[in-house]
């Protein structure tokens, strides 16, 4: 899941106007760009950064939910959670492969993640102190991911678009499963319902931040839209998410932690929609810049897995090399 509004894209190109115009013509004709096609350097680098951030988010996203696998309260929930976290790892794997088609290796991307150079979705820098967070993440975080990713199924870059089609199917299953978990808590004891409300209170605003900075502050959106990498702006997607999610909360008796939330019949060209309160962008940037509660722990956990696993990867390579030598000698 979890592509986030892109952070810090580079829009410089060295190509001449004729080249750029020809490329734009293909984009406007809704042709898919494939790995071996000519493309502007900035198109390539934007996609590498975007797909890389997305892949890293899948991988780092395994941690907050993985935190509850050994403590899942029933075998049914345990199996569902294990399968979900495993799906996220699978998404990471397809996405790294999609990024590799643009000429960057998984090792390079991993190093950038571990050194802090590459970003991942800010949402995973929040902790999961309670079991309800497992439901809330599925409901809101996978839900927000779907809003972001359904339009990416039509992304102009073929391998990314195709990866998204497969990923989106699984994300919507995760979203329903998460919502069902929260719904179940709300139908449970007073303590369970309080656990669900507390969790929603903590995750609501961070999940709105998943769509990235507001359109007025996001410099790269224009170019990504022109190249049909993105189809909607951050604010448009955020609004869709609010409009879809608020009624879901009401249905199970939960309330959003936003005193300014109210129905506005004039919104969305007269179709109606929710007005909502101001997002704390200071918090967003603080977390993006590494000062969320869990940023350091997340990278530390990934780094530990990578470092502790070095001897395993080396052994696998050494063994494969020996086998190849034997085959060559035979």
């Amino acid at each position, binding site marked *: 899941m979890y592509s986030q509004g892109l952070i810090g894209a580079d829009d410089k190109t060295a190509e001449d106007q004729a080249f750029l115009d020809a490329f734009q013509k293909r984009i406007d004709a809704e042709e898919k760009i494939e790995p071996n096609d000519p493309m502007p350097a900035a198109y390539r680098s934007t996609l590498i950064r975007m797909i890389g951030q997305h892949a890293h988010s899948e*991988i780092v996203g*395994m*941690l907050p939910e*993985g935190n509850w*696998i*050994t*403590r*899942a*309260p*029933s*075998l*049914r*929930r*345990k*199996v569902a959670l*294990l*399968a979900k*976290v*495993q799906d996220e*790892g*699978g998404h*990471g*794997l397809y996405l*790294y492969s999609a990024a590799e088609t643009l000429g960057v290796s*998984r090792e390079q991307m991993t190093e950038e993640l571990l050194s802090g150079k590459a970003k991942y979705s800010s949402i995973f820098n929040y902790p999961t102190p309670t*079991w309800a967070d497992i439901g809330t993440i599925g409901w809101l975080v996978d839900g927000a991911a779907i809003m972001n990713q359904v339009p990416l199924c039509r992304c102009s870059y073929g391998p990314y678009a195709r990866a998204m089609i497969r990923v989106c199917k699984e994300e919507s299953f995760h979203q329903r499963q998460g919502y069902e978990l929260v719904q*179940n*808590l709300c139908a*449970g*004891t007073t*303590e*369970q319902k309080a656990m669900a409300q507390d969790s929603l209170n903590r995750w609501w605003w961070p999940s709105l931040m998943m769509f990235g900075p507001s359109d007025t502050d996001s410099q790269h959106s224009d170019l990504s839209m022109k190249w049909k990498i993105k189809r909607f702006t951050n604010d448009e997607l955020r609004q869709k998410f609010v409009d879809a999610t608020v009624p879901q909360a009401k249905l199970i008796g939960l309330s959003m932690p936003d005193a300014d939330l109210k129905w506005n019949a004039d919104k969305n060209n007269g179709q109606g929609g929710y007005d909502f309160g101001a997002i704390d962008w200071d918090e967003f940037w603080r977390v993006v810049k590494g000062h969320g509660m869990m940023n350091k722990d997340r990278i530390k*956990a990934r780094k*530990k*897995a990578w470092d*502790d*696993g*070095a*001897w*395993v*990867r*080396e*052994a*696998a390579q*050494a*063994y494969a090399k*020996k086998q190849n030598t034997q085959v060559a000698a035979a």
Partner: protein
Amino acid sequence: MSAPLLHTVVQIADDHLISGHRLSEWCGHAPMLEEDLSMPNMALDLIGQARTLYSYAARLENKGRTEDDFAYLRTDREYQNCLLVERPNTDFAHTMLRQLYFATYMKFFWESMHESSDETLSALSHKAIKEISYHVRHCGEWVVRLGDGTTESAEKMSDAVQALHPYTEELFEVDESRQHGIDKGIFPDHANLKTQWQNTIDAIFVQAKLTLPEIGFAQTGGRKGLHTEDFGMLLAQLQYLPRAYPGASW
């Protein structure tokens, strides 16, 4: 209801639950992304089998308990998994070897269960054999790669063999209940299982350039509910929510 059958079914279910639990601890922390997918995958197989077995146990017992009552609401001394499966992950070499030892045992177990006089277990054996054969292959390949990889990996693999081999004897332990099941044609003859297991492990060890250690003394106790200290910590995690919120449903 057959008390001896119930007793043995719970033992096998416990083996699967605890084995799956240990594997699931790796999720998100594996040496490579591919293993972040395969270890949870194997854990899913094992916990899935545990669910089927606990549900069968609940039916045999017929006292209204559920799979979760068995999995979550017993005390340390009531779990009867073999000690091998509860041993901590320690490192990837220990984990792969532990799973290989257990999966190889289960593979031959399920294979002979195709002929079991118990229809439920015989039906389960057909699904389980497919899953567990993959575990044997996957873990066996890793044991070979690590045993015959680098000097460092060979050392770690051989440490794992030293540490875990003493726990393998318990896999073949036959208590009164199990003997009862063997006599009734429900469970296979364990001496035969041991030979099959040993042949497979020997063949893998040759490829992995590993030697079988001399076992001074076989460690057993799990089948009687006597566990190592790490096991209590495992249960503390496993049982936390159902214990903290008695009666709640999730």
